[in-house]
């Protein structure tokens, strides 16, 4: 099936499901686009369906019940007679008139018949071998989504080796004959006188139901024949000379043994098997039935030309018996798909016409049709289908016995021949000579001769022939005996029609499981906002927002984006401004500002399955506001499903004040105060959560100021100094420290760029950060920029004076006499919102 047809079928399936109200549209996080065509991978299932030992006459072992049929093969009758002769009178003058000649008269009536009876026919045996390859188009994993209608096309191919094999049925065949004959003949022979006498005594005989041939099977299954009641001979049998003399038969006798030859029909699906067996081919002298009982023929030897010959009846028959067997096997391969749960389905034929539809956990349909199902909405886990295959069929049987006879019938052939007989020989009289010579001894009269000759007298030659009274030649006379199906009552109840039924005994074939695996796209986004200074990821007056997007589904997500809408709660309060955006794994949008351009990414990234990326946003803030971030992350699956996730964060920045100096060497407490501003009441702060340079407050109190409250706290000075020392010593944190898995280091990339060791293909792909398809100095810059810390060491502390400034890791060195340092306090509001406050302080006596 081509793709266009498949689309047409899918539309038909969708139309059906829509009409039935079964289409479930996904809502919520999964926004569906137009249903994409799931690609398929064909999987072949080889299945050989076979059966054996089936009856030729009906389902299972159905017998050919009460089959006993007789057919008249030959039926000849006649009644003829005739007289003919030639008797002539002859005047002898001396003896008067005498008769010479002959006459023959003859008559014959007769009736000859030949019958055959088939009885006790067994079931025979039918076996079918039908190997096929069923191709099932299995939707490829992750090429469809839950709730989508997917198709599973199927097709069937018949493999070599398909055949119908049969074993001939056993039965008995009986051939009998009948004969009735009356005949008489006389002859009259006249030689001077006539003599009439019969040629043979009148015949009036009848012989009925004469057993000619009896064919059957011995107990051991071998076939036998009895010829004229003689001992059994094993079949097939060629009649010997002696048997021929005894039976007037010759030829070959056997029982039907048809071995049909199978062939595949032009539809490349159904089978036929056809065969023919000539099991009797004999010549039969039928008048031999009465041989020995009557003189059927006589012929005298030639005696001085006299000859008598007659033939009363002569019937020669050649009988041939055939059996034709024709079988057809019209199968249909079926597929059963068993699902772990009921599903909505539809089945269409190859033309797209609906065949079946419903809701079931086990669906059976014809192989070759197209199965469609709605993958259950909300089910994004794979579903395992168990396929199995079986066969249905229509089998037909057609068995016919055919007979052909060639008959030559001759009745009453008589021939009589009587030669001519000389009665008076020829003589000559010479009267002149007698007078002139014999009577004139003296020779007085001159001799004169005048001879007169009288011819001889002979009887006439008599040739009389009578007949043949009948001479008939019938060539090619034929009859049929339809064994099966013969009549309506041969149709087994429940079968598919006369001579048609379903062949039983075929096996079912189980196939390997099919896994339908829809896409399961999951995008996840999380964010955290921290004080840049406290987290050592940014300078004072900044927040560092970390956006983490991850692909927790089973398909890659392209065009990934994290929209980050930044806002502030108090319109007149502190402001914010995006100062930096950075990502190692992802392609950050340098134009992002959180207000008019919310996209933190360029949508150039593809989140691999299991992959994640971090975007770090540096935000300049001024105190006196609660800043909020609303994230909306999305990505698109290979089949176009857009999946989204959201997250939110808030961060409060309070005005914060520290008393002017902090003597590094002094003890005591350090007082600080959170100052309320319009919309930002310090009473909302959870004092116990606060930490100044990591140090918890010793005590605190709320001090009303107008309608607002200031929160004052006391910290242990030495602890704060120690905490500050620790923070400064730790140095900055590279905010984008998560390397891209395949991304080379800048040094590695630079070496490759300048002719050193080449990068791997995956490294090249990962390193082409500007996406121009080549590795260049721009890519190196992007790598360097993303791999390096985005916070300069100097950002950690403002106005740090004295030796050591500008170094790598910063510390308040022993030689530093004093420093102006910004302290940072962090904690949470009572509603859980994180907060910070910053204020500069001069630390004295650092080197003491």
């Amino acid at each position: 099936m081509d793709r266009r047809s498949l689309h047409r079928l899918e539309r038909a399936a969708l139309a059906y499901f829509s009409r039935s109200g079964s289409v479930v549209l996904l809502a919520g996080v999964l926004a569906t686009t137009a249903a994409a065509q799931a690609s398929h991978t064909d999987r072949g299932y080889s299945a050989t369906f076979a059966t054996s030992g089936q009856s030729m006459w009906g389902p299972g072992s159905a017998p050919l019940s009460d089959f006993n049929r007789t057919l008249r093969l030959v039926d000849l009758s006649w009644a003829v007679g005739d007289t003919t002769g030639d008797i002539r009178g002859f005047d002898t003058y001396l003896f008067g008139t005498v008769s010479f000649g002959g006459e023959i008269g003859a008559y014959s009536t007769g009736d000859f018949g030949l019958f055959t009876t088939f009885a006790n026919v067994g079931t025979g045996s039918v076996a079918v071998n039908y190997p096929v390859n069923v191709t099932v188009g299995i939707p490829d994993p992750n090429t469809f989504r839950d709730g989508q209608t997917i198709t599973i096309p199927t097709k069937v191919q018949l493999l070599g080796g398909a055949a119908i094999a049969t074993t001939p049925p056993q039965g008995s065949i009986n051939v009998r004959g009948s004969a009735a004959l009356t005949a008489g003949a006389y002859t009259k022979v006249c030689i001077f006188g006539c003599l009439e006498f019969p040629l043979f005594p009148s015949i009036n005989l009848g012989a009925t139901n004469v057993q000619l041939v009896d064919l059957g099977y011995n107990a051991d299954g071998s076939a036998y024949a009895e010829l004229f009641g003689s001992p059994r001979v094993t079949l097939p049998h060629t009649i010997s000379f002696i048997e021929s003399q005894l039976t007037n038969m010759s030829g070959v006798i056997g029982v039907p043994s048809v071995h049909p030859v199978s062939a595949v029909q032009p539809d490349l699906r159904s089978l036929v098997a056809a065969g023919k067996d000539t099991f009797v081919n004999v010549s039969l002298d039928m008048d031999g039935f009465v041989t020995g009982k009557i003189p059927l023929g006589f012929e005298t030897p030639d005696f001085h030309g006299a000859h008598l010959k007659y033939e009363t009846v002569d019937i020669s028959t050649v009988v041939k018996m055939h059996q034709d067997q024709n079988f057809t096997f019209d199968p249909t391969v079926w597929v059963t798909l068993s699902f772990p749960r009921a599903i909505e389905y539809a089945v269409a034929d190859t033309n797209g016409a609906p065949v079946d539809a419903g809701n079931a956990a086990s669906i059976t349909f014809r192989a070759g049709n197209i199965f469609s199902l709605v993958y259950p909405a909300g089910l994004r886990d794979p579903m395992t289908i168990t396929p199995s295959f079986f066969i249905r069929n229509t089998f037909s049987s057609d068995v016919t016995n055919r007979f052909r006879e060639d008959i030559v019938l001759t009745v009453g052939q008589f021939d009589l021949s009587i030669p001519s007989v000389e009665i008076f020989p020829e003589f000559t009289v010479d009267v002149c000579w007698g007078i002139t010579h014999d009577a004139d001894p003296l020779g007085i009269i001159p001799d004169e001769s005048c001879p007169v000759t009288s011819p001889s007298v002979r009887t006439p030659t008599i040739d009389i022939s009578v007949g043949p009274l009948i001479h008939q030649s019938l060539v090619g006379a034929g009859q049929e005996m339809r064994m099966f199906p013969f009549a309506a009552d041969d149709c087994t109840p429940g079968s598919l029609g006369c001579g048609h039924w379903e062949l039983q005994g075929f096996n079912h074939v189980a196939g390997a499981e099919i896994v339908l695996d829809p896409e399961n796209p999951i995008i996840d986004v999380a964010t955290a906002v921290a004080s840049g200074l406290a987290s050592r990821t940014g300078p004072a007056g900044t927040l560092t927002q970390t956006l983490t997007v991850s692909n927790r589904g089973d398909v890659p997500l392209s065009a990934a984006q994290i929209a980050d809408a930044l806002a502030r709660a108090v319109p007149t309060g502190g402001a914010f401004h995006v100062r930096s955006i950075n990502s190692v794994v992802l392609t950050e949008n340098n134009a992002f500002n959180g207000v008019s351009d919310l996209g933190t990414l360029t949508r150039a990234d593809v989140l691999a399955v299991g992959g994640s990326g971090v975007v770090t946003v540096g935000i300049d803030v001024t105190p006196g506001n609660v800043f909020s971030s609303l994230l909306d992350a999305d990505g698109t699956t290979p089949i176009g499903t857009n999946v989204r996730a959201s997250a939110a964060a808030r961060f409060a920045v309070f005005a914060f004040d520290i008393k002017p100096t902090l003597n590094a060497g002094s003890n005591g407490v350090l007082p600080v105060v959170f100052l309320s501003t319009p919309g930002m009441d310090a009473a909302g702060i959870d004092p116990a959560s606060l930490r100044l340079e990591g140090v918890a407050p010793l005590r605190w109190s709320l001090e009303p100021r107008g309608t607002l409250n200031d929160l004052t706290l006391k910290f242990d000075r030495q602890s704060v100094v120690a905490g500050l020392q620790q923070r400064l010593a730790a140095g900055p944190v590279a905010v984008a420290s998560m390397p891209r898995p395949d991304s080379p280091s800048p040094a590695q990339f630079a070496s490759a760029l300048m002719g050193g060791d080449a990068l791997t293909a995956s490294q090249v792909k990962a390193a082409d950060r500007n996406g121009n398809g080549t590795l260049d100095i721009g890519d190196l810059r992007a790598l360097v920029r993303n791999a390096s810390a985005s916070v300069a060491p100097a950002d950690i502390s403002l106005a740090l004076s004295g030796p050591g400034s500008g170094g790598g890791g910063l510390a308040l060195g022993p030689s530093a006499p004093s420093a102006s340092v910004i302290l940072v306090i962090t904690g949470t509001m009572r509603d859980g919102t994180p907060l910070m406050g910053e204020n500069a302080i001069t630390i004295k006596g650092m080197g003491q």
Partner: protein
Amino acid sequence: MNRSRRWTAMFAALLLPVVASCGDSGSPFRAPVPGTLVVSLEVDGTPAGAALVVVHGKQIGVPAAYSDAGAIFARPMDADGGRWQVAVVGTEVSGKLFSFDVPDVNRPEAYSAELIQVADRADNLLPDMAGYRVSIQPKR
């Protein structure tokens, strides 16, 4: 011609060919001064974000970043230090890029620099490097 003038003429005849044969390799009477040469990027318009440069000469020392110009990556192209490839990456790349030591700083003309690639500050490779030139001067 007296004796002293003859000796003067003979000395001049012997010395002049020697002086003439040393014309393009410096004065044979001035000793080489080891020092440092600086490669600069001259920009007509917007500063670059990165540049890839090849320097040619003899006995070129390992290139070093010049102040805070940015990170550099260098790779020798032959065994005797006759050619180096140097990549400079920074926030803004212009002016003095990197330096390298040479045996005689008084002969900067024996060294040359070639600009191979330039990227802008959005990491894009510039197809046209017009407006960007590299030069070499002794470090002062």
